[in-house]
């Protein structure tokens, strides 16, 4: 009897997916998310020069160069397009949960939602901003997998009731070795896959104000899963963590650049 039970237990242990045995506790998963949030957040300011390219089937490519200013402690963000010339001066301002877009050619601000496609590309505000996953989502574990040559944790996140986020459901693939996000999939409220994002390269830069490294994805590849064939690539060309002028995070500043 004992022998038969032992053998059955052995067989069960053998055939059960390894994830069932290795699944991290909920608190551990929240810690993983907090690690991502902490790494990408700077206690001081953040400035980056970004290149955004969108490819859409049967259409001309969209290309932008933009500057991103962040003051994470105050939840403020500015994205200002610098190139091409026709787009220079247009930009976004995020303050708390408000996202505004400005077009100097008509001198108007408009309020936008979290779903806003930045400059008509597949990228969204959250792709340029600090990460806030631990507060906005509740994680569950899907399993341990491999992504290319990397071993990854596969997590499924559900937005909390009060979170103002673009996507109610998100799946993340976190590099086991570094804890960084390598792949992300965003789902609509009806669980339809909307976009897949890859973060093939992460970089870190020492922040004196934070007294720790600030992480940022050097390259972001976003694939539209609804309009197949459409894709957007974001490249962070340079990052500077020096403190920024307070005036930058106001509507008046963005307006002043084109007046």
């Amino acid at each position: 009897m004992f022998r038969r039970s032992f053998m059955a237990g052995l067989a069960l242990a053998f055939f059960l997916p390894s994830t069932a045995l290795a699944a991290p506790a909920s608190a551990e998963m929240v810690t993983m998310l907090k690690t991502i949030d902490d790494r990408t957040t700077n206690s001081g300011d953040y400035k980056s020069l970004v290149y955004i390219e969108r490819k859409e089937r049967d259409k001309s490519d969209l290309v932008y160069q933009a500057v991103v200013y962040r003051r994470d402690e105050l939840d403020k963000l500015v994205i200002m397009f610098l190139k091409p010339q026709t787009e220079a001066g247009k930009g976004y301002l995020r303050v708390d949960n408000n996202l505004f877009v400005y077009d100097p050619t008509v001198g108007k601000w408009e309020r936008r939602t979290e779903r806003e496609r930045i400059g008509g590309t597949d990228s969204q505000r959250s792709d340029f901003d600090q990460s806030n996953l631990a507060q906005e989502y509740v994680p569950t574990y899907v399993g341990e997998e491999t992504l290319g040559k990397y071993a990854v944790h596969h997590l499924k996140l559900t937005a909390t009731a009060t979170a103002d986020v673009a996507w109610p459901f998100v799946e993340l693939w976190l590099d086991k070795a570094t804890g960084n996000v390598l792949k992300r999939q965003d789902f609509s409220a009806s669980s339809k896959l909307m976009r897949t994002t890859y973060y093939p390269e992460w970089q870190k830069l020492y922040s004196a104000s934070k007294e720790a490294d600030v992480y940022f994805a050097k390259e972001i590849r976003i694939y539209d899963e609804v309009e197949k064939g459409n894709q957007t690539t974001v490249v962070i060309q340079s990052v500077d963590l020096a403190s920024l002028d307070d005036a930058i995070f106001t509507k008046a500043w963005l307006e002043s650049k084109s007046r």
Partner: protein
Amino acid sequence: MIAQLRLLLLVAFRSLWAHRVKSGIVGSILFFGTLLLVAGTSLLDSVSASMERSITGSLTGQIQVYDKNARDDLALFGGMSMGSTDLGEMPEFAKVEKELTAIEGVKAVVPMGVVNAMVMSGNELDLMLDRLRTAHRSGDREGLAQTKAQILGVAANIKEELGYRQAITSDKAKAAEEAAALEDVLSEAFWARLDTDPDGLLAFLDTRLAPLATDGRMYYLRLAGTDLGQFMEVFDRARIVEGTAIPQGKRGVLISHRTYEKLLKNKVAREFDAIKKARDEEGRLIATDNLLADQVARNARQYQRLLFQLDPGPARELTTRLQRYLGSQEADLGKLLQSFLALDDQSFDERYDWFYKEIGPHIRLHDLTVGDVITLRGFTQSGYLKSVNVRVYGTYEFTGLEKADIGTAINLTDLVTFRELYGKMTDAQRAELADIRTSVGVKEVSRESAEDALFGGGAAEAPVTEAVATGFDEFAGVEIARYADGPVLDERTYNAEEMRSGLALNAAVVLDDPTTMPAVKTLIEGQADKLGIQAVDWVSAAGMLGQLMVVVRIVLYVAVSIIFLVALVIINNTMVMATMDRIGEIGTMRAIGAQRSFVMGMFLLETLALGIVAGGAGAAAGVGLIEYLNRVGLPATGADIMVLIFSGPRLYPTWGLSNVGLGLGIIVLVSLIATFYPALLAARVSPRVALSGKE
């Protein structure tokens, strides 16, 4: 021969007289058959002709030309394609115009191009904050005070609404934050910051108060860019309803009047209009029609759409006037408005007038109002978003299509605005993009191979690298265009040459004589390759409206054919019975020496005479009916589709000789055929059998 014919005629008319009751019945049937045919075909032709005039006189002209390599079909009134259509381009309209106007019979060639644009109405507070910002910037103290009073009024309303929301929300912390923000805004101390910290005050209002107001709406406008001066001259069905036409050389928009009234109007006003239409045009009553009663109840619940738009001054005045009008002591304007909107059949007409006289002038009746400067936004061909500020000069409608959603879904703009929103990429822009792309050097990775390419064996380095801290000047080598202070209205003017020398997507070819359309189309097709264009007729160019017209025409023809077929069967049966009834008489005639041919001839002559007399009278009556309808007009009662079919509120039908000839000819022919066979049978009966009365 003549004597025999004379005899036949005598016998035939005497026989008709002898069987005058029967002749009367058969004659009546032939009379009504002809009347039906003449009036029916006249109505059909009139409907077809008026629909054709409505469509060709509105937007299509008789022929449309566009790029021969277009991927999609031209559908000016909307097609089956859900997305944007690719009609190709006519890069140099002037060249096409020159060649086409040289063709005999071509009256005008009107350049066109359709684009889709978005217009955001903005939430109420965002709009007020824009005004506050502008007033502050320009030092307009009066404007500041007025806008501040408006913002306080809206804040007070939101505070009241928030009380209800707080009771049911699960996020108490957020509700408390919102309540605190409102308390701040409603305090005098807060507004004192307008002098000391205006940017901080504006930012607070932008980020803490404005999100509490209802979101603004986004409208999608389908815009046809054209030479508006030529357009209004050539297309006689287009007429300005409100405002003015766009002055020559100016830029602007004319909104379809139906869109203005059905889409852009304040919801309460729109419902008022809908209830009035249901009562006046459809004969429905609030008391007896449950759907209408529900509509009235729903409208009363929309009172906040009025309340939130009223400035404090007008709100106080309206409270007093409503108290007086309703005989109420209620001090709460919201409750007074709800009482006012509790309509019944007795009070409706009076309150409808009162609404437009007393409330209408104090609210924003339309989200986009005639005279407004609006921002049109659209994704250009180059992929970038383009925004243009233009004035709404007025509303327009196409006579005959004014009640058809399909016929009113298009708005008009000038050709220059169209070209900006269409936004063809220039070579210089293309080169600039290539430079930017080259400077970064991003490799292309397809979706299918992404995981292998990005995380596969080729990637040897660790996924985290140390970045080098280098300061950078983001504005080095960047040129940002400078614009005037505040919202910029594009007041640039343009001349006729500038307009015609550029791009158009399609063009309407209007003819001197519409009946020459097939011949002129053939001549245009002869030039098509040289000009790189293709030509389509107006039915095809009208898209869904053209298809609808074809369907309506088929349905009407089928309906008239069915009615006519039933009439034919009746005529046939009547003639057969009338002939068979006279077998005894035929036997007598045969017994006294009448040949079969004589009998046959007599019957056919009788029918011919009856057909000509009764049919002629029927045709005259049909003509009379059409003439009468032409004078009084046939009303398009009931559904709006009737207005589209009649091309207006009334159809004024006309008749032609072809209708009379066709009607009379068919009736006489059918009668003769219906007589021939039974007469042949009767003539074959032997006199003995006929006289025996057994057959």
